[in-house]
């Protein structure tokens, strides 16, 4: 291939680029662009086109007429949504589960990380880490199936109780215990994986601080309180804020899989609501309205959470630039 060789400084991307004309930059960077295009194409088709597709929330959409042929109905679907008791049940369940997990799930990885960090033997620690990270890579179907085999009506616990002459007791179908069950499943699956970021933060704490405190007579617990926890504070705050920004996302599959066993009253969350209401009945626009509602509230929460993060002097998920 015949090619004019450009001046050397035009080849290096880290040197001053602002002065080069667009044509020269294109000639220099076309390969980089070509590498990016396929991924961007998929992103546009499967993210941005559906994002625009949310306009059907303002229509009475039917697949035969398409977006162009379906009648516009303004905010009708949203009015319907807000007067739908099942929607409020789903919203209430979602928010309750988030709040519950904030108290009973969120601190677990922190405690586990501190515990792991205190294990002196490196090999033992790596072994335990390997074990507790693992369930993160199991699918929800698998996790629910395992829980069912251990705690379900025909599971190991019931089997053991029955053989010991007790009345078996099925946790998997009890709506009142459902929130505890899903939190236990989340802890089992993801709390170990969640320790990674805290372990890294713990490793970054200067050990001289501990030594100086110990020399000054600070006990183990005082060191934990005055050195370890302040050292973890930025990470804890960051993850807390991220979690709040994600309050309407409690996960889909876990609830979808167990909704039949405990009933919609306890197990319906926003995502499963959209699924059952739309794909089962063909109310496309209504489902899109529910999805759009969730997406927009999520967007607001993330933006607010980041504002709060910046106020606390933390980075948040995006920087101000």
């Amino acid at each position, binding site marked *: 291939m015949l090619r004019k060789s450009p001046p050397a400084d035009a080849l290096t991307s880290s040197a001053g680029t602002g002065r080069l004309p667009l044509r020269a930059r294109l000639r220099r960077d076309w390969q*980089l*662009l070509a*590498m990016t295009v396929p991924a*961007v194409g998929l992103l546009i*088709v*499967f993210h941005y086109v559906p994002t625009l597709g949310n306009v059907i929330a303002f229509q009475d959409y039917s697949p035969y007429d398409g977006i162009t042929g379906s009648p516009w109905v303004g905010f009708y679907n949203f009015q319907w949504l807000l007067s739908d008791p099942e929607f409020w049940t789903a919203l209430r369940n979602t928010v309750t589960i988030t709040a519950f997990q904030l108290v009973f799930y969120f601190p677990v990885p922190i405690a586990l990380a501190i515990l792991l960090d205190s294990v*002196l033997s490196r090999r033992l620690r790596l072994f335990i880490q390997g074990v507790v990270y693992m369930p993160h890579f199991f699918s929800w179907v*698998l996790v629910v199936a395992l829980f*069912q085999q251990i705690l379900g009506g025909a599971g190991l616990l019931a089997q053991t109780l029955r053989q010991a002459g007790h009345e078996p007791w099925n946790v998997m179908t009890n709506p009142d215990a459902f929130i505890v069950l899903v939190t236990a499943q989340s802890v089992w699956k993801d709390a*170990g994986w969640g320790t990674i970021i805290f372990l890294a933060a713990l490793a970054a704490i200067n050990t001289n601080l501990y030594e100086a405190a110990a020399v000054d007579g600070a006990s183990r617990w005082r060191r934990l309180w005055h050195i370890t926890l302040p050292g973890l504070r930025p990470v804890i705050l960051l993850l807390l804020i991220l979690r709040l920004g994600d309050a309407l996302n409690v996960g889909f599959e876990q609830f979808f899989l167990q909704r039949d066993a405990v009933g919609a009253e306890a197990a319906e969350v926003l995502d499963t609501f959209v699924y059952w209401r739309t794909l089962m009945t063909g109310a496309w626009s209504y489902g899109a309205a529910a999805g759009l509602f969730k997406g927009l509230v999520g967007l607001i929460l993330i933006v607010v959470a980041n504002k709060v993060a910046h106020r606390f002097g933390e980075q948040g998920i995006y920087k101000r630039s």
Partner: protein
Amino acid sequence: MTTRPVWQERPTVFGLTLKTVVLTLIVLAMVYPIYVVVLTSLSTARTVTEAGGLVTLPGELSLDAYRELFGGGVVTRAVLVSTGVTVVGTVLSLGLTIFAAYGLSRPGSVLHRPLLFLFLLTFLFTPGMIPSYLIVRELGLIDSYWSLILPTAVSAFNLVVMRAFFMNIPGEVLDSARIDGASDFRILWRIVLPMSKGVTAVIGLFYAVGYWNAFFNAVLYINDNGKWPLQLILRQYVQQGMNLVPNQRAVDTVAGYALPPNLAIKMAIIVVALVPVLLIYPFVQRHFTKGVIIGAVKG
């Protein structure tokens, strides 16, 4: 064994015992259910009957359940589907992600800011289930295996992690290669990738596990249950309790061996879903180093 720093007091016997007990319980809570499931899947009908269900102590062992599963039929096909989707999907995803991550990692290149922004924006807003479903349907991908791959082919999260890693490679190295006349494809292949084996392995694992575990996309997009991936089979036969072997056949013997009990077969399906993850995991686990994961979490 790392030694205790001199300033640290010796732990009390009580404290040490407590810590050991807690850590042991945690490890057992992870390992024991898997042990029980694997053991039951390997047990004969008699052992399962004697145990009254799940087997906790090894008795008679047999591979009948696996023979039944892999003797053709629903599970065999589902394993093939899941394997195919996982292999094709992972190769495609990893390729697209590496290319895009590198393409967006050179400071000052044309359009890299707006394109990167397109990816970052996906963290803030998800389009929602219904429009996503409709676009897949419009493209005619319902009941096509591509519906399990294309919509999730590029994860912005993985792309950002990988890009952050590439950006840490000193620019001078790449610039000197450019001056020597190397194309960007060549630089990526010969310089960048060999320096990024760890991050590539971890991202590859993330994608592979994602495809192997893919459940909900299949619920949405695959109506033909002859095309179901393994996770849907797992749900139908294990979670929903459908029997793979009809009950009246359980008294027969086929091909010289007694049919395995349904419970063992169900547990074997769990094991089949579990094993690929357990096999790859140890090789990648050592790469879960600080760099990759912290970049990952900060996104």
